[in-house]
């Protein structure tokens, strides 16, 4: 799919506009208390409470415990069911692209190589039909990240039930994203070059360019300039620790170079994204306290010689080594596939990871990495009532059957373009049969 969006007829612009239907109405703020009773509560920090009672008021969890916990307000009987914190996707482009092949709907990739000032938040389409389709699978929060170039821009964290991006935002401008250069690059086959990968001659030079930029930005921040430089200004949070730097790198050498680079520049918070070979350098990562957003578990191994299940088990290899791990949805058809985030986590369970550990990767770990763990990521008193009820194990598609979901205590619609069409056509055939 990747190459399609590059050359798309503009003509489809108006076709799309014809198809934009009304989206589900965002829920009103929580009124009155809710109590979910009887469910197995998956806290998101590794713990489970069987036959739990969860009380939430004004968007916050006010009580959670076993049957002895007092209920309050509207009682939801969830006996035999499961409650989970809303799943959180990191490094996502949801809401920035509607249809991959329709260029007019593509907003995730601005031109330019070093463009940290570009902000994903304002392009985030809160009414995207793709975003809407996340909720019936339990994916309720996401970090929206610009792609393309060396420093790709500034991300923000949003929740998935909103009228617009201002309503959606949970944490604005949380991080700057950088694509680390590859030490191996592929020939331009269309120019008659080999399609093989060979050492990238410009590797050092490419690193230096970013290095100069960040050094300049650091120097710029030490005074009060007369003339504002938007680029320099936009990365000051990296040096103060207010913003994290997410570095997208896969190779062993690249990762070591990237982390060393960031530390030398005095960047306080670094997160590694992708990290295909991170399992080879776990000691190094631990030493530098680096969290990893592990590459898509449901993907093919990059090298012919790799274990067939390397992407499946990679997060486990990292977690076992004591590294904080979340999951990366990046890859082919990433947006529409992001509703499979719970199954990306489930895939790792198949490789021997404990289910609650796997759950952490898309709840508390993700919240920690995004710096929203004070409010999100676990079912704990004082945190946001962003959670859902599933008939069964939500990490397995067979049983990921969500009956109710809440964001900040607001009970959100679980309908979508898909359920609408499902009902419409089920109805069509029912009528025919009658």
């Amino acid at each position: 799919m990747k190459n399609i969006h590059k050359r798309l007829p503009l003509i489809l612009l108006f076709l799309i506009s014809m198809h934009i239907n009304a989206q589900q109405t965002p829920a009103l703020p929580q009124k009155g208390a809710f109590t979910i009773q009887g469910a197995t509560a998956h806290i998101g920090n590794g713990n489970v409470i069987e036959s739990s009672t969860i009380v939430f008021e004004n968007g916050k969890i006010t009580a959670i415990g076993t049957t002895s916990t007092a209920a309050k307000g509207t009682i939801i009987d969830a006996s035999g069911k499961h409650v989970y914190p809303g799943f959180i996707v990191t490094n996502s482009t949801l809401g920035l692209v509607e249809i991959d092949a329709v260029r007019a709907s593509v907003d995730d990739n601005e031109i330019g190589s070093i463009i940290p000032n570009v902000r994903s938040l304002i392009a985030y389409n809160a009414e995207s039909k793709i975003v809407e389709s996340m909720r019936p699978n339990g994916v309720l929060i996401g970090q929206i990240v610009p792609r393309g170039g060396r420093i790709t821009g500034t991300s923000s964290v949003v929740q998935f039930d909103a009228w617009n991006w201002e309503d959606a935002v949970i944490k604005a401008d949380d991080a700057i994203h950088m694509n680390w250069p590859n030490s191996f690059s592929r020939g331009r086959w269309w120019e008659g070059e080999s399609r093989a990968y060979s050492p990238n001659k410009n590797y050092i030079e490419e690193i230096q360019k970013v290095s100069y930029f960040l050094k300049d930005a650091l120097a710029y921040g030490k005074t009060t300039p007369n003339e504002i430089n938007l680029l320099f200004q936009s990365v000051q949070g990296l040096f103060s620790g207010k913003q994290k730097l997410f570095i997208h790198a896969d190779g062993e050498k690249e990762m070591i170079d990237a982390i060393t680079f960031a530390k030398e520049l005095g960047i306080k918070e670094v997160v590694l994204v992708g990290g295909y070979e991170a399992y080879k350098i776990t000691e190094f990562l631990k030493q530098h306290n680096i969290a990893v957003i592990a590459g898509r578990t449901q993907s093919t191994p990059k090298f012919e010689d790799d274990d067939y299940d390397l992407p499946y088990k990679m997060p486990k290899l990292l977690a076992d080594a004591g590294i904080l791990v979340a999951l990366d949805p990046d890859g082919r058809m990433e947006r529409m596939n992001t509703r499979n985030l719970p199954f990306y986590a489930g895939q790792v369970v198949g490789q021997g990871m404990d289910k609650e550990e796997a759950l952490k990767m898309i709840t508390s770990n993700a919240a920690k990495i995004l710096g929203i763990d004070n409010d999100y990521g676990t079912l704990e008193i004082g945190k946001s009532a962003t959670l859902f009820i599933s008939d069964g194990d939500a990490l397995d598609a067979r049983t990921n059957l969500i009956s109710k979901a809440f964001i900040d205590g607001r009970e959100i619609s679980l309908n979508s373009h898909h359920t609408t069409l499902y009902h419409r056509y089920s109805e069509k055939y029912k009528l025919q049969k009658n």
Partner: protein
Amino acid sequence: MKKNPLLIAILFCNISLFAQDYFPKNDGVKNTNHNFTALTNAKIYVSPTQVIDGGTLLIQNGKVVQAAKSVTIPANAVVINLEGKTLYPSFIDLYSDFGIEKPKRSTMRGRSPQYDPTRSGYYWNDHIMPETNALTTFKFDDKKAEELRAAGFGVVNTHLQDGVARGTGALIALNSNGNDSERILLEKASQHFSFTRSAAKNQSYPSSIMGSMALLRQMYYDADWYSKGNSTTKDLALEALIANRGLVSIFESKDKLNNLRADKIGDLFNIQYVILGGGFEYENIPQAKATNATFILPLNFPEAYDVSNPYQAAYVSVADMRHWNQAPTNPKVFVENNIPFSFTTHDLKSPKDFMTNLLKAIEYGLDKTKALEALTTIPAKTIGKSVELGSLNKGAYANFLITSGDIFEKETIIYENWVQGNPNILADINQKDIRGEYNLMVAGKTFQLSIKGEVSKPTAEMKQDTIKIKTKLAYAKNWADLSFTFEEEPYRMTGQITNNSNNITGRLILPNGNASSFNAIKTAAFVEKEKEEKETKKIDVVPMTYPNIAFGNSEKPKQENLLFKNATVWTGESAGILTETDVLIQNGKIAKIGKNINGGNARVIDATGKHLTAGIIDEHSHIALSSVNEGGHNNSGEVKMEDVVDPDDIGIYRALAGGVTSAQLLHGSANPIGGRSAIIKLKWGENADTMIYPNAPKFIKFALGENIKQSNWGATETVRFPQTRMGAEQVFIDNFQRAKEYEVLKKSGKPYHYNEEMEVMVEILNGERFITCHSYVQSEINMLMKVAEQFNFKINTFTHILEGYKLADKMKEHGIVGASTFSDWWGYKFEVNDAIPYNAAIMYDNGLTVGLNSDDGEMIRRLNQEAGKTMKYGNVPETEAWKMVTINPAKMLHLDNRVGSIKEGKDADVVLWNNNPLSVYAKAEKTVIEGAVYFDLDKDVQKRQAIKTERNKLIQMMMNEKNEGGKTQTPTRKGQRDFHCDTDHLEEAYYLQN
């Protein structure tokens, strides 16, 4: 060594052997020379197997008169004493572009594709150029001729290496003394073909290997039609092809799979191609042998990868490392298998590498006699010139090499390469070996001089006591020039080498410019040190696997009798799921299902707590293919995916690890009428033909929607019909209508023009070939059913069928066999806007046979989970969900009588899972095809360890190679090609050109 033309002229006056005596002469007097030349006392290889010791070779007028032990030397003979020397017939290279300029690449960037030919009066496809005559653009290249002669060659067969049908090659003697009238031995010696598009031409078709194959087949069919006088129009290309039918056809394959593909085409038309191989033939040698072809082999052994940087080394696959190690055995493997072959300099950076690599092949076990045959008699025979070339029998061209000894020894010097009786000096035959230790006396001082290195190009080292002195030696034509700097002052000397003395004396120029003399007294003979060490060097070749890449099998899996004990058996039949049940597999079939089965000698597998299912069947896959889209025409029914199955794709192994046992390999969706399918079993390690189902039901891929109207192909791709869904209908109707008329004519008994594409369309009309149609939007799906109904046949399968839920009723009414969809894909293009994950459930609810397909090398690995999703989206019952990846696709493929469920009598294609197979947590532990275990989780662990060990070993070997001064190359990694329906057809076309 530079040759001296004057010297040659004086010594040998028999130049201009073939002087064109009917030509007027205005530059002097007639200079006819019919003298003989007798080369005496030599060891003569008359042929690789006929050797004369101390024989005489008598030549006259550029040809051999006699080669024998005793020869009566005529009075008018120039006698050359070659005592101690050896004569070999010079080498022949059948695959050369000597004297022909490489065609310039023409680029289509930014322009609309060209679907029609640019020529008129020629074939309908610009890549078919059998009329090309190598000599049209031929220009004798003295420089290149000299290089080739230095490598031992006397004759080359040269042609323009461009296009699918490339025209004829010309046989040229590398005779720089004569002119074209003498050295053109054959104007048309061979015909040439390949699967590669012309670099200079831009016609869109063919854009794939299977397209090139179909084009060649149709070309031969068309030629047959034309030769019978059926054409009313002129086609100079076909006329040339017909006229050249008698010539040997040489096929540029350069790929171990293309070797077989080429041969298959030849078999259809009773043509035995001579095949230019690629150096990987050792990997599938039994099949190479079965072609019955004579091969031409390049000696393009890869250089070791420079693995000194571990990060870079990680990029090199074990397969690439292995090829470095195993490739030099390729010629030896040919000999072991009795497959005739010759060698070529093709694909070498320089002819200089030829002998180096040939010696390497010998080091790796190639027999010397066979090597010589591959350089002489075999190419001569291949080109039909056994009398004139490749030997020194009477009547052969006097093309021979004079060497210092065994030509396949590293130290041997080729002194001279004679072509058509003309000597070309490569090294001075009379040059004395001056190597050794000397005392050099210069201006009253004594130095230690040691001369070493090669005989013809020795080097000097000088010392005074222990102090090294920088020095330079040049040695040629019995003169040695020596210079050095001592105490910052330069000394220059030149001395003559004589046969009378081992010492060297001569003139010395002192630093002050005054002349004096020097004297070098030989004190010791030269001793070769390294030689002994080299000979003890052991050749270590790592074993091959099947296929010869990571995770290949060291032995091909064998059929076993297996008894799965106490499993949860998902039958996929009305019996549903049976708990605590045994399944017995015998002779590749499911023999028995029941409790407490006695399996006799069957290997018992404890399946307690595990799930046994039929193997997964993917109705729509593009793994294991060398090429996927032939987008050069809107109808490519003539192409066959069976032609391009790639059994070495790691995707096969990975799919097996996901419990897949069968897959339909489909053409892409670049055009409304795609290509014919290959339906395979994933028999990892077997060859392509073994993987393909015997008597496979016939299928063809059709496609609708954005891909066929090229909506997402960019602004230039707007000239191929159709560009709209309206046009698509017309393409279908037009093709079926033409097919109908074609069949009527064919049945009428009147002459008809065989057209492979129309034959395929007729099969569809007659219900002999089934359509699986890539489809998204309801309008066009409905349209295709109506077109089919208009022509009285039915659509078998709609694949992808993402809006199937909108017209499940209509598909039911039409009577499709099945609908194969994605579980949850959408959003990637405009036409999937209404694709919903409930699609499978709605179609199932309405009584359709529903399948789930992958179209993707990743998703194929977990189709079981995709089936599980239908339980979430639409509440499909567990057993029915499972059928969507097993028996339902089997039904669509008309294979449900053989595979798809666990039923007595069916093929034993089963998978043992550690968990409910629909769960995301399930892992395939064993994947069995016809009773042979093709994937085993425990063996997989062993293979991982083996790869690690082998990588380490090969890296070590390459490090040694580098440390010993061997050439190395930068580490590279081949780009993995993960095909999909819409794999860029432009990328394919470029791939075919490169």
